[in-house]
């Protein structure tokens, strides 16, 4: 393999450094109108009346809509979200009315003229409070919503959007064998994805009843499917284009502003309507990562084996759980971490509150549950007087282990043990501080500590998730590669070009990945989420290449008068194995072979490849047993930090991140995923959080919501790749898109303990929180 494993620059590099890459933000159309929205100032309020008459009279206004006029609900797994609030608003920031006008300024003016009469009702903000029998209901009609039955389990009459149960062994018997029982609570607030390009969509609802959309989205076919279901229109009448996307991180998965602009277009004489979310709307109106409260009870023997674990996860889904219910599910089936434990009971509740609603976010619940699990593991080790490394090594999954859903780990599943070994070694785990270092710490008040944490994640997706790819020849024997997953910078298109080139045995420069994503033209793909695109897209591309090679050999076999089995490919030629001088070039067969006398055979060749998830099952409703995962990527971080005990400020000196990726397909892009993901994890660890006062969001700008800048970067980020081949992955590869940010907070939290002997249970570990934790210890 020459191409696979090398470092190929992103194929769209020039477009991105010259400003030529066009994003949805940049698109303008003839006759285009601009939309603005009016949002609810209350976290929970009945809408008594809406008066839009003055807004409608403003010159330049084409349409004003309220929830009453467009009674549609949308949702991926739980269809619970209205396009505009209907009857009541469930969070401060929820869209209540929308305007389309000839300019953005007029649309903004018109929004100010809309009068809404609200009657605030009792809100609920805490997911545990929301479980109480007398808690206000966020969704009174939960029992009437459609959702994916048999996979999610809503409890009508309560705020539980879904309750997932995992039962392995018998926890009562397990705890009876335990020498120590360790019980703790952990918490993570909501956070924002912060794509630099805010959500943006344009729609034109044609007079023929067909809808065309241009949108900053991760998954064109999911937008088409969900819009189709919501509006009751055939998907064939909906066309979704996705140009360049300025960051997604899960926040642009599923469907967002597309239905609203589609409805506005219909109401506005079928003119195209564009909306660009303001940064404030990105924080306050569009969805976030869910918050989590976790309660974990762990039983351990004095030898350091975990014998039982009982976990309750309470997800703050916010006001809608259309995507969030699946985070509650993924957080459950992966919810004990990559450990071999005989007796486990997990209850994962996705709970409605009156906060901004949640959705997918890089890591999909795993950063959250592994904050709790990996802190708990360290605390358990300390209580036993064991080294946290040794404690983990005694309990980690290994070949022969059975996961909490009944999956048997084998030699090719990937090795979390190797990841932890590599991370611990590189960070210098167990190396005691020198006398001088201790003296220095005493003098400066800046103490150092190291921490470890492991992780695992598999794609969380429907059992029948599919993906297709097309390879079509151009005249000169170059190839256009068509896929409909979206490359928003992660580099998958480049990697898929490498996969195609490797399989076709031709230079990667001769594979063009078609960038204009369009559901009318591109083969189907479910969604660009879950670190699944390289795995599934890669498999589809390999199959498409094999299909194309087979067709090339068909033609060559006739021309060269040789059986197909005797033909080989290489150097852009199809040749006879035994006599390589007898060959045709790719160019000669690309559009059909022509004999000297003018006769032609073959035709323009098109390779097609399909891949669908293999062997996945729905999980048993009572026990969670089944197979939820096509490929588990394991990993481990080792960090060294310095805490200024005078201020509580944490500085990360070095972070080592090891992942068993199966096979590195593009070294440079793989390393970049790690570096970028680690810093995003660092943001969740030390500075990012949603803060509300009485349900009103306080952190709505970059002044109040802090993301890491170049000044916050660790001195050293050190990626390590372990390569235990995934036998059904493309060239043995697994996904590694989300994993770098998972367990970064846990490793830092463990390092805080290592440095100071103080346990932190909540992120973010802001200077204030760390300072007071240290002070309270003293």
């Amino acid at each position, binding site marked *: 393999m020459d191409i696979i494993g090398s470092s190929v*620059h*992103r194929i*769209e*590099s*020039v*477009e*991105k*450094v*010259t*400003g*030529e*890459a*066009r*994003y949805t*933000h*940049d698109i*303008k159309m003839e006759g285009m109108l601009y939309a603005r929205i009016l949002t609810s100032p209350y976290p929970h309020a009945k809408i008594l009346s809406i008066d839009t008459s003055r807004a409608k009279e403003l010159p330049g206004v084409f349409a004003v809509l309220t929830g009453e006029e467009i009674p549609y609900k949308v949702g991926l797994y739980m269809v619970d979200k209205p396009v505009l609030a209907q009857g009541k608003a469930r969070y401060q920031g929820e869209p209540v009315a929308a305007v389309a006008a000839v300019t953005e300024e007029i649309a903004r003016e018109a929004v100010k003229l809309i009068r809404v009469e609200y009657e605030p009702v009792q809100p609920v903000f805490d997911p545990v409070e929301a479980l109480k029998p007398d808690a206000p209901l966020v969704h009174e009609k939960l029992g009437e919503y459609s959702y994916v039955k048999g996979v999610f389990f809503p409890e009508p009459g309560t705020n539980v959007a879904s309750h997932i149960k995992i039962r392995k062994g018998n926890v009562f018997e397990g705890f009876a064998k335990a020498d120590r029982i360790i019980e703790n609570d952990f918490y993570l607030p909501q956070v924002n*994805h*912060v*794509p*630099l*390009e*805010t959500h943006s969509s344009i729609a034109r609802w044609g007079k023929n009843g067909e809808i065309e959309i241009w949108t900053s989205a991760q998954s064109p076919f999911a937008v088409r499917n969900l819009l189709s279901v919501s509006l009751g229109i055939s998907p064939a009448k909906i066309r979704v284009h996705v140009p*360049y*996307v*300025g*960051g*997604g*991180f899960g926040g642009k998965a599923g469907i967002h502003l597309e239905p609203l602009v589609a409805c506005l277009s219909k109401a506005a004489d079928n003119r195209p309507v564009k909306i*660009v979310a*303001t*940064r404030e709307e990105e924080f306050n109106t569009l969805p976030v990562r869910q918050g989590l409260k976790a309660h974990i009870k762990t039983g351990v023997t004095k030898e350091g084996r975990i014998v039982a674990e009982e976990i309750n996860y309470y997800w703050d889904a916010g006001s809608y759980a259309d995507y969030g219910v699946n985070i509650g599910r993924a957080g459950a089936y992966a919810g004990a971490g990559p450990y071999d434990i005989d007796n486990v009971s997990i209850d994962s509740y996705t709970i409605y509150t009156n906060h901004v609603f949640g959705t997918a976010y890089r890591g999909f619940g795993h950063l959250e549950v592994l904050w709790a699990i990996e802190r708990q593991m360290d605390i358990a080790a300390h209580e036993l007087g064991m080294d946290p490394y040794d404690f983990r090594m005694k309990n980690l999954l290994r070949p022969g282990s059975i996961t909490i859903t009944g999956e048997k780990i084998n030699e090719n599943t990937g090795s979390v043990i190797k990841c932890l070994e590599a991370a611990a070694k590189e960070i210098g785990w167990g190396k005691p501080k020198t006398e001088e270092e201790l003296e220095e710490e005493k003098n400066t008040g800046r103490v150092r500590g190291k921490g470890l944490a492991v992780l695992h994640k598999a794609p969380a997706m429907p059992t029948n998730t599919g993906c297709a790819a097309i390879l079509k020849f151009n005249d000169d024997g170059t190839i256009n590669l068509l896929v409909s997953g979206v490359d*928003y*910078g*992660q*580099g998958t298109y480049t990697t898929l070009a490498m996969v195609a080139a490797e399989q076709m045995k031709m230079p990667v420069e001769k594979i063009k990945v078609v960038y204009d994503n369009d559901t009318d033209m591109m083969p189907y793909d479910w969604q660009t989420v879950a670190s699944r695109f390289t795995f599934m897209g890669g498999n589809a591309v390999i199959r498409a290449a094999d299909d194309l090679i087979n067709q090339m050999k068909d033609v060559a076999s006739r021309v060269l008068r040789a059986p197909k089995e005797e033909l080989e490919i290489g150097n852009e030629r199809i040749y006879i194995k035994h006599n390589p001088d007898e060959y045709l070039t790719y160019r000669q067969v690309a559009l059909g072979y022509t004999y000297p006398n003018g006769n032609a055979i073959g035709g323009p060749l098109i390779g097609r490849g399909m891949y669908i998830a293999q062997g996945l099952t729905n999980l048993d409703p009572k026990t969670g047993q089944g197979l939820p995962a096509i490929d588990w990527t394991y990993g481990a971080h080792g960090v060294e930090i310095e805490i200024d005990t005078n201020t509580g400020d944490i500085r990360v000196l070095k972070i080592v991140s090891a992942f068993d990726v199966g096979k590195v397909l593009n070294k*440079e*892009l793989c390393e*970049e995923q790690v*570096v*970028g*993901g*680690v*810093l*995003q994890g660092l943001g969740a660890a030390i500075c990012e959080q949603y803060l509300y006062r009485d349900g009103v969001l306080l952190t709505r*700008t*970059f*002044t109040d919501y802090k*993301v890491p*800048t*170049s*000044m916050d*970067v660790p001195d050293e*980020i050190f990626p390590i790749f372990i390569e235990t081949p995934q036998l059904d992955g493309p060239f043995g590869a697994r996904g590694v898109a989300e994993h770098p940010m998972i367990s970064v907070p846990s490793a830092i939290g463990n390092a805080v303990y290592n440095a100071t002997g103080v346990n932190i249970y909540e992120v973010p570990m802001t200077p204030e929180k760390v300072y007071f934790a240290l002070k309270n210890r003293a």
Partner: protein
Amino acid sequence: MKDIILKVNGRKYNLRIDESMTLLKVLREELELTGTKEGCGEGECGACTVLMDGKAVNSCLVLACEAEGHDITTIEGLADGELLSDIQEAFIEHQAFQCGFCTPGMIMTIKGFLDENPNPTEDEIEEAIAGNLCRCTGYKPIVAAVKDLVERRGNDGYNR
């Protein structure tokens, strides 16, 4: 409404604009130079950075009227046809971008910075781009690209 003459990337434009329009809006919507991005509209993210008389500014915080009489350079003004500037080349060499949305602003900040300080330390580079948010790269490839560029310029005295 006001008539102004704006000089952008060496070309002059006669414009009739609303006095309240920002330079960012005029660049993107009147001149259709959409390489300059809007990330927040409040001067907090740096995505809209352009050069005004060689100095990096957030174009969302500058009124277009104020930009009259000044030389404005945007990302579109950097490459000479297909010949990229050395900063753009360094960005490609180090793959100092992912989604690419912050990239034009980031490159303009770096251009303004290096023109003023051709021999910065790593700390100075990090400080120089602290006002440009990037959510994808973790900044390390960007800093590496600038360090490498500084070294190369020092070696061959070349600056384009």
